């Protein structure tokens, strides 16, 4: 194993997950109830609705040193608040575009729809996302590197 590979192996990304109370948080609960295993890197912040997630939170998380940010809400049409997830979708799509445009890997940011019954999906998403972020290595662009 090269040093680089080793560093990648040992790198434990910091991931923040904003989950809506009604679907995704409950879906994450279901993953727990079903004892599905996924990497422990994610720190979940509960919000009532994915529509509550201001793109500013995502940027702030990156700026504070998060390596990845996951936002998850109810599937389109299933929003507990009727339409919050549609609003979130717009805002966060635009955010994704500007991240890409500024060369900040948009792969560090992911939005997903996870219903209360999709514990399996939640576990899969978190696993894949953690892997994806791990692959990208530490996020120093918005966080600022040590060598500044």
């Amino acid at each position, binding site marked *: 194993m090269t040093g680089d590979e080793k560093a990648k192996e040992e790198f434990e990304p910091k991931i923040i997950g904003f989950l809506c*109370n009604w679907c995704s948080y409950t879906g994450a609960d279901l993953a727990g109830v079903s*004892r599905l295993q996924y990497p*422990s890197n994610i720190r979940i912040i509960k919000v*009532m609705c994915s529509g509550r997630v201001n793109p500013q939170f995502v940027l702030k998380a990156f700026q*504070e*040193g*998060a390596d990845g940010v996951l936002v998850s809400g109810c599937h389109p049409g299933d929003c507990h*608040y009727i339409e*919050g997830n549609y609003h979130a979708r717009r805002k966060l799509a635009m955010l994704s575009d500007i991240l890409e445009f500024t060369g900040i890997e948009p792969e560090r940011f992911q939005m997903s729809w996870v219903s209360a019954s999709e514990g399996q999906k939640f576990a899969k998403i978190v696993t894949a996302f953690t892997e994806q972020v791990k692959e990208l290595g530490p996020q120093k662009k918005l966080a600022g590197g040590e060598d500044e």
Partner: protein
Amino acid sequence: MQDQNEYFEQYYEEVDLHDDYLMIPPELALLEAEENEVEVKKDELAKNKLAAGRRINGDVLIVGAGISGMQAALDTADKGYRVILIEKSSTIGGNMVKLDKTFPTNDCSICTAAPKMVEVSRHPNITLMTYADVMSLEGEKGDFTAHIYRKSAYVDPDVCTGCGDCATACPVEVVNPFDDKLSMRKGISIEFPQAVPIVYSINYENCVGCGSCERVCDAGAISFLRKSEDIEVKIGSVIVATGYDLFEPLEMRKEYGYGKYPNVITAMQFERLLSSFGPTEGKILRPSDGTAPKSIGWIQCVGSRSKQLGFPYCSRVCCMYATKEAAIAKEIDDSLEVTIFYMDIRAYGKDFQQYYDKAKDMGVNYVRARPSSVYQNEDGSIAVRYMDTHTREILDMNIDMLVLSTAIMPSKENPKLGKMLGIGVDHNGFFESGSIVSDPIQTTRDGVFLAGCNQGPKDIPDSVAMASGAAARAVQAIVEREKAEPVKPPEQKDVSGDKPKIGVFVCHCGKNINGYLDCADVADTVRDDPNVEYSTDVMFACSEDSQTDIRKTIEEKGLNRVIVAACSPITHGGLFQDTLEESGLNKYLFEFANIRQHCSWVHSHDREKATQKAKDLVRMGIAKSVLLQPLSQEEVDVIPVTVIIGGGIAGMKAAMALSDMEIETHIIEMGDKLGGNLNKLHSLFPTELDPSQLVNEMQTKIDASDYIKVHLNTTLENVEGFIGNFKAYMKGPDGDTELKFGTAIIASGFGEIDMAGKYGYGNNPKIMTQMELESRLIANDLEKPKSIVMINCAGAMDEERPWCCRIGCGVSIKNAKLLKEKYPDADINILYRDIRVFGKEEEEYFADVIENLHVKITRYSDVEKPQVIINDDGSVMVKVRDQIYNDEMELSADLLVLTAQTEGSESTDKLQQMFKIPVGPGHFFIEAHAKIRPLDFATDGVYFCGSAHFPKNLADAIAQAEGAASRAAIPIMKQRLVLEGITAIVEPDMCVGCGICAEACPFGAIDLIKGKAVVNEALCKGCGLCNATCRSGAIQQKGFNDHQILSMIKSSLNEVV
């Protein structure tokens, strides 16, 4: 009443009173006790003595505390009436809590049921008695006297902490009925970890009387001197919600090897295997050797749809639960081979067909066969012999485990209970309804009502709807009574300006958390945080003793914020919030750190990382907690008026139920008369009932009611406001009118889709839909046909409209019967995909039509739909491939009836806009929760019933109508409503009035007044969308404001405080 007394005596004879160690008078017992050096406290005995023969006054007695009984109890208690809820076993929850997940949403069953259980146990208007049976019921509607026999569990429920030390000490091991015999438990036990009340109980049948439990019980909760009680209760009405038994295929259907081969289990046993708190903690393992099966099969209709080998009716839920179990098994292990042997897949409910389609896509193998026999191979695997009805081959399939989808059957105690309560039992053993189609809730005795599966098989939402309906009916008898005084919560301490003093309680959840991470370490880490006043780890934070501890610590340490690190706020948040309130703290000063579902259970292989994450989660909780502020909840008065949109049968029935509860009700109907689709129907499946007669009877009652006002030819133009304070703008014969109301019921119904262009419809007078046929039957103007073909699922279950129309099979069979009776010489052939007759008496009706009237039925496949050919002479031919005989058939049809797909009414979209309620596929409204809130919308104060939600047969629509009336009556009977505390708040100095928040708000809760956003707290649902949309942060969501979320972000990335 003679019979009843006999039964009473007989019961006492049957039930062994040896359970009472105290067969002698207390005084003597005292003396004896002293002699025997058994510690007995005098006052305890005295209490026991007094307890016997005590009297309780209530309003409604509810027998059975499964999901139906709980719903009925909550619906009644929420209206302000006192409920006495009795449950035979030691916990409430019934069969639902045994299930792993529920179809078609795959919601965790216990997770959705547990909050209801907790709510029931904490409701001030509900007196809950477990281990209790009803013995007699005397008197009449409005004035009943019942006797309750409450068995002693030898454990004082007020003292037991649920710690489980007794069970550890108990030497007796018995089969655990909760796990359907798949595991063992102790002689002293609780049913399951989340049982309510969480009180251990001794089953006297198993107890050897060694006293070990008593000796180890630190709390001193166990006493063998506790006496069973005979309690007299005075009530005005009774709801019977005693549930069902499951068919045990030991005698009948023994050819499937249950009880003989260990790897043949019932579906309920399989549920227990799937359940995370079941015998295998959610792992699918064979009972014979504990290995994971590589293949599993399900046999459907075990005990149902057979007069000879079980019950003639359809058990209604088995197709879906088997599909669910198979799909979940497949989800857990994709390599698993799963096969379901079925007769018809009755995926009749909302989203069921799609769920079934998805299971097929996942690789669940459906084989249409009723296996004849089952053998065990040497390796313990099971050989199933069956004939595939599609290929007509006789085959053997070897599977590692066989699951029998056993039928819901009437409780064996129904006849006895029926006699004690004076209510009738039908030929199958279910309780008899007033009418199976038009009055399912009413028993044969006035003032006694039915809810749930004791009336016939039902799935959860239908049971819940019926339970709400039963609550409405039960309240009618006592509506004049004075309501219980609402309990005032203790005075709240004002802590708003105080320095945060946080208490942290890290729950072990037994081994569920502490088994995978170090709870003590987590508690230690945060103890020195400047804002943390107290930090500890506890065994079960939710147990009653921990609750007491938390309350005590709040008091002693002067805590003003509390964090519990445990399971999930979804299930347990409310519980701890209540605990805070009881301690005089605002409930919004509570914060949850989810270290079980989101940590210990999902990172169970890395103790170190799980512990680290738990620390972070708690720290994030602290970061937010520091910033929590007490939130006040506004109260509003409720306008005591309900509006019903739609005057079909559901709307009419709901109006009548509300009227009976003395609530002013307005029906808004677009058409010129009430009755809706019923006016167009000739008759009602599965009865001979004349719909017009039913409509007329109800019309008469509505006309006679002082409480109902009908607005015909009236459309609803707009609605504004919120629960308790709506305002409708209507257009009708009186011009534009306004109406203020408190709650609304949407009963906008459904109709057939436009069939134009499908199956030759619209081009030939011989082709018509079922609805048109009904009209022709009423008019009696059909030309005598020689051959009749009906095509079921026309326009249904395809890509465009993937749902099942739910009612078509029944309608086609009924109309086939009518036509056959009218034209006995005519050939009738019903082309079908599955025959989905699931309701009460429906299967029997169907079997009768097939057996006795010689109506042909031909199964076709979804990939080869029937072709309709219209010849030049106008004659109609139908080409179809019979899936069973694999024959290509050409049927001439003098009459071709299309059983058309259905969809929600045209007004759906408009209502969606006006009431801000969600609509799903097919223009059907989406309920707040598919299982436990089947009549509510997410928007408070708006309910629905009938086919606006999904096509319904009459019985279900009526039960729903009464249920919706019950739901709609709750806010009105409460008179005042406490609103959501998590609302948005505007800082006026920061707001520049750009209005984007108002634009975004899904609930219209924000107005611009004088250039500033102003939140209407009554409309605000607290989603926080406005907060995310406001650029300056002038509008903030209380409890989730920018500062709080930002603090959580920061603390999650910084291991410092």
